[in-house]
Structure formats: C-alpha cells, structure tokens
C-alpha cells in the first residue's frame, strides 16, 4: 500500500496526461487473495477501485479516483506456463505484451496482437482495452486472441470466463469483459492463443503523389482478394517527422506512403508480394521498394512504430485521435481534417491503420497555451463526430476512458447507453469498479448538450437537465 503523496503521485495519470488526479491510496497486491481482499474491503466500505497495468493507455482509462484505491497489477508479472503443444500461454496481467512472444519464441510461436506500445504495455491492459496493433487486419485484436481470463468481480467473487476448449457454454462473457476498460471485472490471469511464427515476411513501401490515390490503392488490394499482414498509411507531415527521428528511409517527396506487408511461407510471400505490387502499380504508385532482408523490413516498420514519439519531438504536445471509418470514406475524412487544421490553426499529421480503417490523426499543440489546448479539444471533437457521421466509430483501439465520454452521447442513443449501464450493473451493482469511465450517464449527455434526440422527442423527460 502506498499512501504518501511522493509515492502516489507517479500514478496520477496514464498515457493521457491531460487528465491527472493523485489517488488516495495505491494498492500493489502480489497474490489473488490480496486482490480479493482489497475488492471485498472496498465493496464493504463503498470505496471506488481503479485497476491499472503499465499506464500506457491513451484514453485515461486508468485515471485514479481521488477518493479511492488505485489497484496496480504491476506485481502480477509471472508467465504461468507456455504450453507449446496446446499453443497457449497463461500469463498474469502485469506481464508485458512483448514478453509473451519472447517466452514463446523458443517453440517457434508468438502472440499476434502487437500494439505500438508492446514493449511496455501489459496483457491485462490489452484485455481491458481490446488492443489492436499493426497486424490485426490479418491476425485480429485482443478479443480474437485471448481464450480465457480469470479474476474477480468488484464484490470479490472469483470468476473465470472463456475456456481453453473452444466455445465455452453460455453467453460469451469473455467478449463482454475484453475491451470493457476495467469496468466489469479485475483480471488476475489471462490465457492467450499462440500462433506459429511465419517463416518470413516482406514489406512493400509504396509512394503516392496524392492521398486519395493511396486510399483507393488500399481498397484495390482488398478487392483483389488479398489480406495483407499489415497495411499502414502515413501522410507527408508524418513521414517527415519520422524520418528526422529514426531515418526509416521513407520517400519524403510522396504525399502519402503505404506499408504493405506479406507473411507466411517463402512461396506464399513471393506470390503475394508479386500480386500486391501489380495491384499497387495499377493504382498509381509512383515508387515501390520491397524490403530485401529482415533488417530492412524492420527499418521500414521502425518509422511507423515510432510515429508517436517522432511527432512528440516536433511539437511540445500532441493529441492522438483513434476514430475508425469505412475505408471508402478516407479521402473525405482527410479533406475534413485539412479544413480543421485551417479552422483551428493547428497542424495535424496523419498515421493510419489503413487496412482496417483506423485513423490516428495527431494534433500538434502546446499544453502551456490554454487556448491551444481548448482549440485542440474542439478540433478532436469535430473529427470524432465526423467519424460517426460517415458510419464509423469514435474509438478503434484506444478506448473511451474519460477522454471520449462526451462523444459516446453522440454515437449512442439513450436506450443503448442505459443498456450499457445495465450490463455494468450486472457485474458491479454498486458501480465501484472504475466508475465514471467509458459509459456516460444520461445526465452527463444532457449536460454536454448532445443528447441523441430522435423525432423531436426528448427521451427520459424525468431526468434533471442543466
């Protein structure tokens, strides 16, 4: 237990540093019994609990409660077993994402989801956020790669969801828990699927003189029946920032570049790279380079994986968005972002998981300038609401947390938000586990002024409005 402010201050925020709150108490349990006792005690006393992994989350999901306990799972860092025959690894939640693949490597296996923060982020946090990564178009998100979790409900009841046998009986509560932002259960053990490591991988770096053409090329690759292992896009402001930082060898003259990867057996990769090159050529790629060896492949990816820190070097602060859109609306949304840059007087490089339509525009600002921060938040809100308008979502993989809670009022109707609250109540009737995150109350939506109104009828007229 940490109580002194000098000890609790490091926990005041996660990767979303704009929101800070020093927790009253930080608990660092080492055993499941201790986790259970913390939860039972807090339930008895009506004290809120916020679970935390490595604190790399980008939406404030681990923002501590001022009047409660921050439950750090950092000491749960043991890999319980790697079962090479069943291709399953069982890990405690504080194990780093990359450490699972390292432990599986001697068996020629790996854990597929690879969020950019994988050297630091924990598997428990990945479960909470349903983390993705640059290879999730082909290999899926956390929800596709976790088979079982064990943990406790807020009241301290032991619970196990999913199974190492396929298709556990009853409702798919595992799917409900994954991506629930630590609001339904506290996870103390995670079993993940391991896949055979592809024998080889090669990546094409393709340059385009127009962002719209690059977007069309993405659709063309998929229309040709190809699911690349990774399909990423960066615009020119992003490649320029990255190139100064890591020297990835990107084409700085291009308006946008695509990274298009193939993995598998050598025969498969050779065949797929040739097919992808033919498609990209027809789609108007101005230049294409295929990685010659593993070192070059990793260098091409290093720029993409370092995009956030690289942007951090050219601006005092940046704000990362996470909307997902149908791929065909890409040109429209990029044009909209360009208009917002002019409207708010802020720059915004774009990196983009193009294959699955997940955008990460990075608004550059200076947090010491109160007006820039205000304009940044308005800019971000407009972009997220545009994502909803074109048929997408406000968050693809970073979560709602505290950051996008207002936009939930735009994306969902009151009946749907009430159903989310009811799901929460089934697991945590006293609403003590990570309260106030991810799902807004209707009162909060009313306050935001964006209550979803259908047919001119204000829903829930009984609620107080202010």
């Amino acid at each position, binding site marked *: 237990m940490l109580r002194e402010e000098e000890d609790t201050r490091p926990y005041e925020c996660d990767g979303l540093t704009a929101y800070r709150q020093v927790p009253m108490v930080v608990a660092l349990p080492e055993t499941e019994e201790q986790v259970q006792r913390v939860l039972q005690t807090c339930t008895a006393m009506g004290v809120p609990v916020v679970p935390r992994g490595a604190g790399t989350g980008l939406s404030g999901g681990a923002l501590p409660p001022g009047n409660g306990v921050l439950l750090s799972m950092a000491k749960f860092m043991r890999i319980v077993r790697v079962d090479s*025959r*069943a*291709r*399953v690894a069982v890990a405690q939640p504080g194990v780093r994402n990359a450490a699972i693949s390292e432990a599986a490597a001697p068996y*020629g*296996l790996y854990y597929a989801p690879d969020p950019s923060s994988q050297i630091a982020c924990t598997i428990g946090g990945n479960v909470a*956020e*349903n983390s993705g990564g640059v290879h*999730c178009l082909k290999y*899926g998100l956390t*929800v*596709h790669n976790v088979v079982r979790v064990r943990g406790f409900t807020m009241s301290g*009841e032991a*619970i196990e*969801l999913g*199974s*190492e*046998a*396929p*298709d*556990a*009986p*009853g*409702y*798919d509560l595992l*799917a*409900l828990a994954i*991506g629930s932002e630590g609001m339904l259960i506290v996870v103390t053990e995670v079993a993940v699927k391991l896949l*055979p490591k*592809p*024998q080889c991988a090669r990546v094409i770096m393709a340059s385009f003189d127009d962002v719209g053409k690059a977007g069309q090329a993405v*659709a063309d690759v*998929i*229309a040709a*029946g190809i*699911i690349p292992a990774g399909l990423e896009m960066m615009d020119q402001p992003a490649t320029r920032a990255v190139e100064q930082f890591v020297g990835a060898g990107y084409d700085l003259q291009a308006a946008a570049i695509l990274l298009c990867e193939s993995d*598998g*057996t050598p025969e*498969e990769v050779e065949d797929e790279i040739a097919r992808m090159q033919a498609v990209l050529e027809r789609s108007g790629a101005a230049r294409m380079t295929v990685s010659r060896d593993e070192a070059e492949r990793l260098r091409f990816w290093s720029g993409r994986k370092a995009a956030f820190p690289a942007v951090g070097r050219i601006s005092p602060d940046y704000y990362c968005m996470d909307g*997902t859109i*149908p791929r*065909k609306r890409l040109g429209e949304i990029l044009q909209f972002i360009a208009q917002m840059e002019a409207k708010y007087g802020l720059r915004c490089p774009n990196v983009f998981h193009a*294959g*699955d339509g*997940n955008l990460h525009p990075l608004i550059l600002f200076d947090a010491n300038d109160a007006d820039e921060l205000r304009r940044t938040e308005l800019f971000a809100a407009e972009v997220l609401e545009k994502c909803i308008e074109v*048929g997408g*979502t*406000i*968050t*693809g993989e970073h979560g*709602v947390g505290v950051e996008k809670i207002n936009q*939930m009022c735009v994306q969902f109707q009151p*009946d*749907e938000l009430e*159903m*989310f609250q009811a*799901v929460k109540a*089934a*697991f945590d009737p006293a609403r003590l586990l990570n309260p106030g995150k991810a*799902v807004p109350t209707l009162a909060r939506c009313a306050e935001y002024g964006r209550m979803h109104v259908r047919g001119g009828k204000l829903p829930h007229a009984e609620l107080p409005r202010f």
Partner: protein
Amino acid sequence: MSLQTLQERIRDAAGRGAALRLRGGGTKDFYGNTPRGEVLDTRVFSGIVSYEPTELVVTARCGTLLSELDATLAERGQFLPFEPPHFGAGATFGGCIAAGLSGPRRASAGALRDYMLGARLIDGRGHVLGFGGQVMKNVAGYDVSRLLAGSLGTLGLIAEASLKVLPRPPSELTLRFEMPEERAIEALNRWAGQPLPISASAWHDGELHVRLSGAAPAVRAAAEKMGGERTGEEAFWTAIREHTAPFFGGPEPLWRIAVPPPTARLCLAGNQLIEWGGGLRWLTSDASPHTVREAALRAKGHATLFRAAAKPAAAFAPLDPVLMRLHRELKAAFDPAGIFNPGRLYAEM
C-alpha cells in the same frame, strides 16, 4: 413486415407476459433445450442491407436466407470464413447468429463471434438498439454484438447484423491419411504449431482428412511436406459441416464435446469423430449424460447434448453459480418480462 410490426408483436407479448419463440427457417429447432412459446417468424424481416466487398463487410436482416447470403458473397469471391452449418435449405442469417455455430474452418479461421462487427436488436421492451457497427475496429461501449452470437435468441430479436467477410482462398486441397486416433491427435497438434495452411481436419475410424487452403504455391509446398494421399473433395467437408456424413446418421444421441486440442482419446462408449485439430469431439453414444459431462470436465472441456430424439438431459453444460447469476441478470436487463425463448439456453432463464 416492417421492424415496427415486430416491435409491436414484442411489446404486446411483453405486456401479456407471453413467451415468444423466435424462429427463422426452423432448421435448428433441435438445438438447445426444447423451444416453447408463440412462434414469432423472423423471416418476415429479410434482405441484404449492404455489402461492400472492399470493406469486407456484409449487413443483412435476420430473415435473409443463409444460402442467398453465401451466393451473394461468392459472386465477389468472398465467403463467411467460419463456415456456418445450415442444417437445411431454410437456414436464416438471424438463426445462424443466434445459434453461434461454426463449421470445419473454426480452428484456423475463428468462430462466428470473431466475425461479429455489429447488430441491431429488438429488446424485451420493444426498443431497437444498435451495438458495434460496420467497421473492423470498434471499442466504443461494451461488445454487446459479440454477446448476441450464440445467445439463442434469449436476449432479444437480432433484427440485423454486420459480419466481417474474407476473400475465399485461391487454392484448396484435401489430404487423406490412415492413422489411429492417438497418432492423429498428436499429428494435428504438431502441425498446428507449424506454419502450415491447415483449414480443416476430421478424423474418424482410422482415417484422417486434412484440408489445406491458401495461395497455390503454399498449399502445394505444404502438401509435399505433410505427405498423405490427395483426395480434393469439397463435398466431404460439406457433409461434415451439414452432418450428412454417415457418422451423424445413427439413432443414438449426438454429443458435441469441446476440449483443449491436445486432449488424449476420450474413453467413452460409442463412436467419435474429431474436428478442429482435436478441439472438437463428436460422440454418438447412449452413455449417461453424467458420464459424458464428467469426461469432458476432466479434460477441462464441456459437453453439449447436440441432437437427440428425446433429450435425456439439459442441452448445455451447467454454469457455476456466479456465472449463472450474471446470465440471469443480463437476461433480465435485455428481457425484463422474460419472454424471449425461455429455457432454450438454460432452464433457469
């Protein structure tokens, strides 16, 4: 019939406290506990709402025929990768999602739930609720659409759903091996740990069939490495998926036992057919439900009484008390009057 008509039927039933039996083509009437209630025919709300091959997404209404959907996807060289069983020409899209069943490709491509992107649901109050969407990555709100997969219509009427689809693999072939059961289980688990494009497996009576799918050169190279005899009959896999293969024709109850794939031979009286690289053991047997469920539990798996002339037991493996309480509370949240398919999943709800 419009969505409003279905909503009115549901509101009316909720008002009377009358049980509703949600039903499409009735091809899966045998699945789960015995259905009861007034039939609400979901086929009245049908049609493919949108299909964008380059977005890899299809959205359809519950009453759409699964065969129509398959044909539409096939025109563009795409398919539902989890290969859902139809169990009859009348199978509907809504029934497919409510049953949540996946076919031979399950072990490599994933289950139906892995392809759920979004759904529109009519809940027990008659409200139309939308969850998820039509994009690949979406973590806004709890993943309610995946919860609906396999819920057997007990949470509401799945009016519309969006699924991820994939391009059909350019090349497929099937290999046949003579192999006793223990060696087949061993070989399947060894192969699954190697980068081989295995997309289905079935062992029965000393014969193992393995299907390879992918780019032609990769399939050829894998076939050379693995050996065996090439058969190349797609009809073989259709018969496994649709339970028209002779194994499934007997009069004994059919059990579906899910276990961790390396699990050794299950010592149970009766006949077995193994799929999913060892993860699924079909059993036709007159063994007592208790014996079958105990054997599954010992292997850290679970047994479903899949099909039987007269069901001697509950269809699904019982849940522990904490999970059962969560099931009942979720059921109550979606269906406060308890009108949707009562008892179909568990007698308690």
